[in-house]
C-alpha cells in the first residue's frame, strides 16, 4: 500500500474488527475447549484442548435425562415459535392493512408494553397461571410469549413493503381476506417468517427465568434449567456443564444455518 495514512487506517480498522470478532467468538471457543478439560483445569484457566471429553460426555448423559429435557425444550420452543408467528403475523398484517381511527393509538399502546420489564410481570403472571391451574405445565411457559409486541412490530414494518396491488388482484380473483393472508401473504413474506422464526425460536429455546419460576418438577424442566442446576451444584463439574452447553447450542445453530439465507433476506425486507 503506497499511502501510509491509508495503511495505518486499514491496520486500525482490521485490528478493531478482529478484536470484536475475537470477543464474540471467544466464549464459544472457551466452551468447546472447556468440554475437553476437567473442572479443575477450567478453574485454573487452561485454554488448550484436554483429554476428558469422553468422561465429561459420559457424566452428562449419566446425570441428565437427555432425551426428556431436549424433548421438553423442543416442545416449548417449537410450540411457542409457531404460535408467536401465527398470532404476530396476523396482528402485523391487520395493523398495516386495515385502516381505522383507533389503529395507531392501539399500535402505540402495544409498543409501549415493550418498555415494561419482565421482572414487573413475573408475579402477576405467576398468579394468573396459578389461578388457571397451569403451574408446572409447558403451556404456562408458552402462553406469555405468543403475543410478542416486538414480533408484531417486525411483521407490521415488513408488511409495509407488501404490494397492496397483490391484495387487490387477489380480491378480484375472488379470495376472502383470510385466503389472501394464507395463499398470498404468507408465501410472499416467507423470508420475514424465516427471520422471525430464528429470533423467536432462539428466545424460546434459551428462555430461562420464566421456566425456572413456573416449571417445578424434574419431568417438565428444559435444557437451560438443567444446565443451570448443574452449574449451581455444591461442587459444579464445569466440564460437564460445557458439554451440556454445547449440546444446548446445537439446535439453535442448526436452525440458524438452515435458514441463514432467508434470515438475511428477511432482515433486508421480504418483498423485492
Amino acid at each position, binding site marked *: 500500500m503506497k499511502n501510509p495514512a491509508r495503511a495505518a487506517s486499514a491496520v486500525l480498522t482490521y485490528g478493531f474488527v478482529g478484536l470484536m470478532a475475537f470477543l464474540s467468538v471467544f466464549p464459544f471457543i472457551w466452551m468447546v475447549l472447556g468440554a475437553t478439560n476437567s473442572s479443575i483445569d477450567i478453574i485454573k484457566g487452561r485454554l488448550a484442548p484436554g483429554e476428558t471429553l469422553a468422561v465429561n460426555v459420559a457424566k452428562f448423559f449419566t446425570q441428565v435425562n437427555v432425551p426428556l429435557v431436549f424433548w421438553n425444550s423442543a416442545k416449548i420452543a417449537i410450540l411457542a415459535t409457531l404460535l408467536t408467528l401465527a398470532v404476530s403475523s396476523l396482528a402485523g398484517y391487520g395493523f398495516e392493512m386495515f385502516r381505522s381511527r383507533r389503529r395507531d393509538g392501539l399500535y402505540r399502546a402495544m409498543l409501549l408494553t415493550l418498555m415494561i420489564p419482565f421482572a414487573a410481570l413475573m408475579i402477576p403472571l405467576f398468579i394468573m397461571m396459578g389461578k388457571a391451574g397451569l403451574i408446572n405445565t409447558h403451556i404456562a411457559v408458552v402462553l406469555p410469549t405468543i403475543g410478542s409486541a416486538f414480533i408484531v412490530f417486525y411483521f407490521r414494518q415488513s408488511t409495509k413493503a407488501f*404490494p397492496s*396491488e*397483490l391484495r*387487490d*388482484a*387477489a*380480491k*378480484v*380473483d*375472488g*379470495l376472502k381476506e383470510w*385466503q389472501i393472508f394464507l395463499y*398470498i401473504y404468507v*408465501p*410472499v413474506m*416467507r423470508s420475514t417468517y424465516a427471520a422471525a422464526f430464528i429470533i423467536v425460536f432462539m428466545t424460546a429455546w434459551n428462555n430461562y427465568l420464566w421456566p425456572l419460576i413456573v416449571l417445578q418438577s424434574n419431568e417438565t424442566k428444559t435444557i437451560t434449567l438443567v444446565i443451570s442446576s448443574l452449574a449451581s451444584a455444591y461442587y459444579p463439574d464445569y466440564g460437564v456443564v460445557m458439554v451440556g452447553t454445547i449440546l444446548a447450542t446445537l439446535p439453535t445453530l442448526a436452525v440458524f444455518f438452515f435458514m441463514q439465507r432467508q434470515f438475511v433476506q428477511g432482515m433486508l425486507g421480504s418483498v423485492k
Partner: protein
Amino acid sequence: MSELQLTDVRKSYGGLEVIKGVDLDIKSGEFVVFVGPSGCGKSTLLRMIAGLEEITSGDLTIDDLRMNDVDPSRRGIAMVFQSYALYPHMTVRENMGFALRFAGVPKPEIEKRVTEAANILELGALLDRKPKQLSGGQRQRVAIGRAIVRHPKIFLFDEPLSNLDAELRVHMRIEIARLHKQLAATIVYVTHDQVEAMTLADKIVVLRAGVVEQIGSPLELYDDPANLFVAGFIGSPKMNFLKGVIENAHEQLHVRLPDYGEATIPVSLAGAVPGTTVTIGIRPEHFNEQGPASLDLTVDMLEHLGGETFAYARHGNGEVVVIETKNGRGLKSGDSIVARFDPACALVFDESGKRLR
C-alpha cells in the same frame, strides 16, 4: 361483452369528496379511456368499478344489474394493474389459472383456457417460469393473460404501460389494440399518457378533480374541446394560449391581442360581448406561412424530430409560443420569424375557461 353505466357516482373519504357525481355510459365492446392529471380521480373511479373502493353514492350497473355492493370477483370484471400484481411465488401458468381454481373451474377447463390465452399472447414458452424470470413486457402480457382466462364481461386496465420503457410501451400499446379487436371486449383503461388515450380509445373521458370535463372520441376532443382544460390537456405539445379582448370594429367582431403587438383576428361568435377578456387557443400545427393573422417572434429553442420541427419562439412580451413546422431544419436559435395562422383554426375561451362558439 357488456354494458356499463355510472349514474351520479360519488366517492368521499370522510368529508373530502374526490369523485363528484360521474355519469357515464359505456357501450358493449367500447374501448373507453380515463385521462386526467395526477390526483384527478381516474384510478379511484376505475377501482370503484372494480369493487376495490366503495361507492359513497350513485349507481354502478353492469348489464342493467346494480353492482354497488357486489363482490369484485362476481362483477364479471378482470383487472390489469400498473405493477402487474403477479403472485411472485407462482409460475405463469399458476398465476393465470389462480382465479379459475378459486372459482371451482375443473382442471382440464383451466388448462384449456390458460393455453388459449397463452397462445393469444405468445406466452407458451414461459408458462413454467416465475414472474421474476420475466421481462417487464412479458410480465405485462401475463397480467393481461390472467385477465383473459376469466372471460370477463369488462376488462379494467390501470395504467398498465407506465412501468415499461418507451419502445416496449409502443409495442404493448399495439398489442392491446390488437387484443381489443380480437376479443371485441369492453375495456376501461386509465392512463395519464394522452398518446395512449388518443391511439387506443373509442371514447375518452377527461377528468379533473373528480369531475368529468368532457367525453368524446379522441378527434372530437382534439378538434372541439369544451373548455380550456381539455384543450390544454389533449395534444402534445399542448395548445398555445394567448390572452385577448373582444372588440367590435366595422360591424365585425375581432379579438385583439394586446400582448402581441395589437394583432387582431376576426371571429364570429354568438354571444361574445365586446370588451370581455378571452383566451385564444392555437395548436402548434396551425401556424403556417400564409395565414392572415400573424405574430412576430424570436426562436428560443428548437426540437428537430426529423419529419417536423417544434420551434419554441418567444414574443417580446416574454410569452413562449410553440410552432410546428415541416420546414424548420434551416432555423436556429435567435432567428426572427413571423408566425401566421388562419383565424378559423383559433378557438376562443371565455374568462371561466368555457369555449365560446
